[in-house]
């Protein structure tokens, strides 16, 4: 088993009646189990490049090697059943139920009814939709974000090793988009699919990509590297321009919550504990607030000393816990949640919503500081001016 899942060799597309090719001799190796993002300005040939991989667009010349096998000339219908496909417009079939939509490829592969049904339920669960509620709905009865979840579930149905995604979160509102991105990254940690992901948004590229291909016109790679390298060592002016200034802020999108030190020893209580016990624990600690968890360890409410002055049941005291983030969220997401939740802290929870720790604004500032230092170090080393200090 080689480490390379998809190999593109001199892949070229010349649309009929056009002078210059839309994709010009694209050669690239896509490692197994990684998310490779194609990013570049509109019209540079990202979509054309992606759609040549599953031959929705037939290449004019060149070769596509999938897992060691030359698939340039195999039956495209057979090929596509091995490759998941998600597009911006989602393209759910409006006249069939969510269940039948997700079952598309299993039905093509002739799975039996029980296996398909079990798989559909499993996948709806995986993408965060309750099968009992959504199975028999029609696409128009779902929100945009829910539809895109179904789109992802449908692409994963037959467990293809490769996934092609063309601006999958492009048409979704920013808040839902952030959530879907995070959920998708969490999913990918388990699935370890090889994913080609197209976007025109460099922030999304930095967030989602294990590796980023910055494409110039005719789909010519300006740089193919990890997000860190792209940010710290742009290969040329095109990349530097495209990535843009404000690289510190960009790095907030690059650093994940799991990569910084979060406070795991916060003062905790259980929602079913006695009020006096809780009060005493808060008084004896040097914390100003206590976080109450429910039976499943999910954060429920924040309590502070004055909250004990009112005669209320524990479950109604204080403020509801907000601003929850998962470890794979970026610091930028965390900051956004803090600002939205106006709490100054974000609560880190795992995939099931159970408490893991607390992240506050200071933690983020500390990590920005560290980054700045590292950056300055790098720029000094390469005899460049640190853009951060140059502007400031």
């Amino acid at each position, binding site marked *: 088993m080689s480490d390379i899942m998809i190999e593109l060799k001199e892949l070229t597309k010349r649309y009929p009646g056009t002078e210059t090719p839309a994709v010009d001799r694209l050669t690239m190796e896509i490692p197994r189990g990684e998310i490779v993002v194609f990013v570049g300005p509109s019209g540079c040939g990202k979509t054309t490049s992606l759609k040549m991989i*599953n031959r*929705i667009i037939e290449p004019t010349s060149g070769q596509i090697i999938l897992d060691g096998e030359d698939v340039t000339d195999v039956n*495209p*219908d*057979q*090929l*596509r*059943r091995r490759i998941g*496909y998600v*597009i911006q*417009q*989602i*393209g*759910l*079939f*409006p*006249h*069939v*139920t969510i269940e039948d939509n997700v079952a*598309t*490829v299993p039905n*093509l592969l002739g799975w039996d009814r029980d296996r398909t049904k079990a798989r559909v339920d499993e996948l709806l669960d995986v993408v965060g939709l309750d099968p009992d*509620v959504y199975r028999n709905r*029609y*696409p*128009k*009865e779902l929100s945009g974000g829910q539809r895109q979840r179904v789109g992802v579930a*449908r*692409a994963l149905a037959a467990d293809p090793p490769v996934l*092609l995604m063309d601006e999958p979160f492009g048409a979704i509102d920013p808040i839902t988009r952030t959530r879907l991105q995070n959920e998708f990254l969490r999913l990918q940690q388990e699935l370890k699919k090889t994913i080609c992901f197209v976007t025109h948004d460099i922030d999304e590229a930095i967030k989602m990509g294990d590796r980023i291909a910055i494409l110039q016109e005719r789909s010519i790679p300006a740089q193919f590297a990890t997000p860190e390298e792209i940010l710290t060592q742009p290969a040329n002016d095109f990349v530097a321009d495209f990535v843009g200034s404000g690289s510190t802020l960009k790095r907030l999108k690059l650093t994940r919550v799991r990569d910084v030190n979060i406070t795991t020893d916060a003062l905790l209580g259980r929602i079913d504990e006695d009020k006096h016990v809780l009060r005493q624990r808060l008084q004896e600690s040097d914390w100003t607030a206590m976080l109450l968890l429910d039976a499943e360890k999910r954060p429920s409410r924040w309590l502070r000393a004055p909250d004990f002055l009112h005669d209320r049941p524990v479950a109604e005291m204080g403020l509801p816990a907000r601003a929850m983030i998962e470890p794979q969220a970026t610091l930028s997401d965390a900051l956004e949640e803090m600002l939205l939740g106006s709490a100054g802290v974000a609560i880190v929870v795992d995939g099931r919503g159970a408490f893991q720790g607390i992240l506050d604004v200071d933690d983020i500032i500390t990590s920005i500081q560290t980054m700045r230092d590292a950056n300055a170090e790098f720029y000094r080393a390469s005899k460049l001016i640190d853009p951060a200090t140059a502007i400031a």
Partner: protein
Amino acid sequence: MAVSTAPQELDQEAAALGRSEDAAATKRAKRGKLVRYLAMPGFLLLLNIATFLWLSGQDLDSIERRTLTADNLIGKAQEHVWLTLLSTTFVLLLAIPFGILATRPRYRRFAPGIIGLGNAGQAIPSFGMLALLFYLFRVTPWLPSTGTLPVVVALVGYSFLPILRNTMVGLDQVDRSVLEAGRGMGMSERRVLRRIELPLAVPVILAGIRTALVLNVGTATLAFLFGGGGLGDVVYNGLSLRRIPITIVGAVLVATLALLVDYIASLIEEKLTPKGL
């Protein structure tokens, strides 16, 4: 769907969609639907009863009495229905496959021209078209100038373009991204046509079929030109013999049949339209 769904399921659905329709509104909607279902048959029944009562009060002469027998009228109505169904079946068998073919990638570039022709064809008055065909059948020695065949040919010729046009428009308006998703997951071109394109085109195609049926019921009235029978005979008799009661009964029956066909077609349309649309 609403008719067969249990109330609490409906509530759940409404709540999940962020609507706050209460049970009373649902009940009102159901009643509205029932009224809509019964209005047309009720109206037609009343119209025919009224015509019958009016006729009973008339002093009919022997010609009128001979023409206005139940046997004769039912026979003519049956001929009329038969002509309509026969020609509609033929036109569907011709126009729908042709419309599918004309929207395939290979022939797609002809599609706008054909749709334009379809639009123009609808503007030709039926009487003019029939008269033309009537003449054509008369002067062509090897074509029968009377009977069912010329009538059916004329009706098919006349309703071909609207059905073709609707089939093509119906297929054409299907969201490209839905088709791309289908192909992208490995559905063959034929499967995409059968499972996605056609079902999604059904509402527009059905509207075309309904139009054709109504056109054919109306135009079949002119079958008397070819001695093809139908209710047109009754109306024509009434006119040529100057018997007003015969003319009126014929006209009422033609109108009843046309409205009934349109009504039944509308029910079928509602039934066959895919649920998610």
